[in-house]
């Protein structure tokens, strides 16, 4: 097990390095430096500023310094837009917010998705199954950026039950709509995967044996069928996590929750390269780590995998 984790870690490192280097080169090749403004600076001043931020050094040295400061100090450097703030300050303001509603959304998606899938599979070809199928099908065309306006239309503008945006330190009524908007499509996919794999497992020989032994129904479902049925869900969790993190950009923009998504989009609109890069690398690290956790969990649970 240990060597498996080590091996996966070793492939994660080059992934992150490639991400950092590629985005650094991209940023470097962008037209106009970070300190180009409408008013041209005197050449000497510009040279001084460039020297202060290390921009006069050759590209490979700059990359080395950047990577070193990230690896050793987890320091993404100063923001190009907000001169008095570092990228770390900006991220540490927004990240907890994103993490809060992101993890709640992941939890909601898994809990409701799995429950719905299991209920649908246990009631195969009844109205419960068809309702779940209808929901999973509809949710395919309801990505977060469609759900968000529809929810606001219903709960804020028509019914007036929930505030249309804001965070206020994470009060419940501010979290509800972001979580629904973010989790719906993943909930649907998880439900669909659970349903089909549960149906497959319920038709397999070992379940028949368990039934023949006269085990109680609940025991069969929860002890014997659920665990193997959840393996495909687990392998979907990697992409789902990436989707949730990406979707948080929409949530932050639409509900003004103040997470890192809004930083990212504003950075993109204002060409604040260091902030965009910092967030891309942070998200990349998170993605790689989550994939690692999923892989390890998978190897741990699935008896067929020998490492």
């Amino acid at each position: 097990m240990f060597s498996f984790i080590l091996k996966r870690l070793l492939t994660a490192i080059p992934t992150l390095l490639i991400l950092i280097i590629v985005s650094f080169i991209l940023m470097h090749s962008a037209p106009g430096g970070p300190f180009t403004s409408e008013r041209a600076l005197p050449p000497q001043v510009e040279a001084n500023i460039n020297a202060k931020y290390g921009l006069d050094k050759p590209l490979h040295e700059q990359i080395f310094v950047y990577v070193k400061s990230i690896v050793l100090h987890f320091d993404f450097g100063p923001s190009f837009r907000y001169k008095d703030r570092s990228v770390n300050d900006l991220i540490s303001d927004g990240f907890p917010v994103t993490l809060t509603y992101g993890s709640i959304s992941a939890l909601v998606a898994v809990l409701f998705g799995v429950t719905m899938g299991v209920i649908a599979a246990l009631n195969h070809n009844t109205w419960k199954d068809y309702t779940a199928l209808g929901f999973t099908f509809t949710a395919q065309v309801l990505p977060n950026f469609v759900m968000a306006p529809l929810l606001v239309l219903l709960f804020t503008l028509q019914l007036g039950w929930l505030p249309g945006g804001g965070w206020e330190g994470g009060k419940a009524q501010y979290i509800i709509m972001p979580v629904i908007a973010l989790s719906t499509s993943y909930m649907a996919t998880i439900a669909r995967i659970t349903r089909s794999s549960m149906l497959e497992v319920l038709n397999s020989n070992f379940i028949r044996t368990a039934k023949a032994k006269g085990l109680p129904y609940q025991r069969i479902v929860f002890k014997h069928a659920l665990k193997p049925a959840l393996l495909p869900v687990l392998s979907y969790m990697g992409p789902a996590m990436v989707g949730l993190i990406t979707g948080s950009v929409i949530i932050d923009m639409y509900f003004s929750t103040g997470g890192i998504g809004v930083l990212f989009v504003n950075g993109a609109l204002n060409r604040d390269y260091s902030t965009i890069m910092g967030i891309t690398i942070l998200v990349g690290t998170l993605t790689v780590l989550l994939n690692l956790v999923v892989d390890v969990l998978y190897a741990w649970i699935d008896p067929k995998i020998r490492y």
Partner: protein
Amino acid sequence: MIVDQKKMENLADNLMAAEEVQGRSLWADAARRFSHNKAAIGGLVTLTLVVLFTLIGPSFAQWSNEEIDWAVLGQVKTMGAPSIESGHYFGTDELGRDLYSRVIQGTSISLMVGVIGSFVAVVVGTLYGAIAGYVGGRVDNFMMRLVDIFMSIPYMFVLILLLVIFGRSLNMLFIGIGLISWFDMSRIVRGQTLSIKNKEFIEAAVAAGVSNFTIIMRHIVPNLVGIVIVYASLLVPGFILAESFISFLGLGVQEPNTSWGALISEGARTMQYGTLWQIGFPLFFFTITLFSMFFIGDGLRDALDPKDR
């Protein structure tokens, strides 16, 4: 030895007759299965109608997509509602531009993103996967590890990074979507190639001294067509969703061009003023097109993918 002339002729006739019995090819089988799938046919009809709408629709438009109707500006809520008399069949947007023309334009751009994305996925993904699978060994290991690395990068963020750095243009959007589109396809194609590679006809080709390149192009790729079509059709909605996502944030298609994501975003911003048609029409086209694409993709998979039968 005297040959019974009559008997020989009969035999020849019989042979001719036997040849006239048409065998059903795999493709005819698949087409039959597809045409029996009501949801898939419904999806195909709907999608065709949407495409026709983008082609024929402009000739009925009374306003272009950039033109501002000054008579409407400032009182969009009352004057800009959908009506036949004013020529704004779908109403106007917040700036008094004709929503009918804008929806047509947005629809065609969104559809184009899907087509281009799947085209790149098919060409690059098929070749990449077929080469990796056929050559095998260290090359395969390296090529697939590279795809693994690419796939574990949050592509939406990298795509936005690309758009920011090289300018937010339609071409850049197409290039960006093309760059990320082929990873899944190459994995699927590689898996399929691995199983084709060990078949006898490949062995025969190798024995006959056919070069590797010709084997891939003449013997492997044609046998991948079915699975490639299925997965290309399943990938299209994903590209459209990705583009809409970026345009919703205002980072994709730029004015005066538009796309579903941008239109939905505009509509969402103004719905509190009661101009619900501004979100309704783009959302309607978005929804029915995605629905029909999912139906078509499922239908194609049922018709062509041998695994599910």
